[in-house]
């Protein structure tokens, strides 16, 4: 359980989103939706602890994140970022193995047990056949799956992803979202991601966080459809929400 209490995000003395009260539950895939520049990245960076919260608390398994060391945090929160690591000469297996570094010793050597976790993580992410390939020779979709395998090897109860479906072609986007949903459900992890793929988020998320300037609205896709939030979310000429089909339609 990842709980946000009166959390305000922002930079310096500029508040982006004030007073967020919410919790992320194990076993649920949660998608963060919102237009560009509304503060999705700022919120995600705050949850990743890359950015200090301006106000409020974040509780992870009942403990205030402020009281945890970076070593402890690295075993609790795993992240997948939009920036692609640009590394030469690193095999897929080595990259996934980097996820074990919070657990390895001084030289970062993997034990037999670590290697076992790496193999399992690659299997779960469906990249076992890529094992010996060099990371920088992979396609965008493959790289993204490797980074997910890396975060699985890190064995954190919370996984945060910044636009994991960006840059992917349509089938890869669907595959990625289904993989994340399966991981959330089967491994009882907290999975929280930001995305612009609204349709897919509607169909595959257990919970949606819709971000407006200075405000976050939270609910299951069905709830948000019923109370008109999804209609309100995209109010643009030529787009309308069809509550029966749970999807957006483009009017001629």
């Amino acid at each position, binding site marked *: 359980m990842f709980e946000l209490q009166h959390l305000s995000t922002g930079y310096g003395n500029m508040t982006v989103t004030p007073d967020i009260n919410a919790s992320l539950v194990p076993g649920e895939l949660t998608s963060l939706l919102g237009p560009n520049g509304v503060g999705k990245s700022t919120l995600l960076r705050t949850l990743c602890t890359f950015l200090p919260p301006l106000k409020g608390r974040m509780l992870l398994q009942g403990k205030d994140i402020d009281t945890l060391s970076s070593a402890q945090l690295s075993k609790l929160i795993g992240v997948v970022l939009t920036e692609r690591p640009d590394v030469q*000469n690193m095999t897929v297996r080595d990259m996934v193995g980097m996820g074990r570094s919070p657990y390895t010793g001084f030289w*970062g050597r993997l034990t037999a047990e670590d290697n076992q976790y790496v193999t399992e993580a690659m299997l779960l992410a469906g990249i076992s056949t890529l094992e010996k390939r060099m990371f920088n020779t992979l396609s965008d979709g493959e790289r993204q799956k490797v980074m997910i395998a890396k975060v699985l090897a890190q064995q954190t109860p919370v996984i945060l992803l910044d636009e994991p479906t960006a840059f992917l072609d349509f089938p890869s986007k669907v595959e990625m979202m289904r993989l994340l949903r399966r991981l959330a459900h089967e491994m009882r992890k907290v999975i929280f991601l930001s995305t612009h793929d609204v349709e897919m988020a509607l169909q595959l998320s257990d919970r949606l966080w819709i971000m407006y300037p200075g405000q976050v609205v939270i609910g299951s896709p069905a709830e948000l459809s019923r109370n008109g939030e999804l209609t309100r979310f995209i109010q643009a000429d030529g787009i309308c929400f069809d509550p029966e089909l749970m999807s957006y339609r483009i009017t001629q």
Partner: protein
Amino acid sequence: MRHSAIISVLTVALLLLAMANLLWGSLSIPVADVLRILSGEPVPEHPQWTYIILESRVPQMLTALLCGMSLSTCGLMLQTLFRNPLAGPSILGIDAGANLGVALVMLLLSGTVTLGSLSVGGYLLVILAAMTGALCIMLLLLMLSSLLRNPVMLLITGVVISYVTGSVISLLNYSATEEGVHNYIVWGMGNFSGVSMDRLPLYCILLASGLTGAFLLVKPLDAILLGERYAANLGVNVHRTRNWVLLCTGLLTATTTAFCGPVSFLGLAVPHIARMTLRTSSHRIMLPGTMLTGGCLTLLCNLLCTMPSSGSIIPVNVLTPLIGAPVILYVILKRR
């Protein structure tokens, strides 16, 4: 398996080259006599041979070896820290900073005093000046580091830094004595023979501590390859790691620059040569691989510089760009 094989080959090559450095020099001494002197036996017919081997060839070999190891290690750490394949102590202008520090002491303070005739205290002053210069440039680079991820910006910054320090050095040269200028220019050509036996311990201690520091950074450096945020998420204190890399490279560059002159290109080129042979990104393998390759190359350079046929000694910086330039071109062309 492959990695340990390559490391073993490099170690053997290093030992052979080190031996070759002791056996051959500008004066030809029979191999058997060299071995006798090394094992502690004097050669009564030629008492000066003992002096040449123990007071000249041994320190020169160790100087070259450690200089190569140190500069290549700097290059590797900087390339990882800036995530830029063109990073290296000379191209980033770090040794230009060290240069300026040395120039200030040599030309402004002591004027006519040559480095060789300085006392150990004076030597320390030169090292401290080199170190201060190197650290100032490193701090400047770290402040600009968000821009430096772009290889072109990095090169431009390095060139600009070198121009600025160059102009200050020109001014110092202009107002210095003729002898001071000559000494400074000779120092600038690079030289592994400038460290005498009594200064060798200081040189070794400074570089050994820098190299040990590099080994302590193996695991965080691996994580930094993925980018600062991923590294932070893996529990690495990125800020502290940066500062340690800053300190280690500053110490290593400043010490080698102060003792051997600004040896160019090695720091940039050697990590790439090691990468091509080892084909890994893991610093646990790359760091010893880079050190050994760097050591081998400087020992080879030193051997070529003092080859008996030439009769005189060629400055080190005549040879190092010949190795470095092709590697830089290769890296640039490969990335296009």
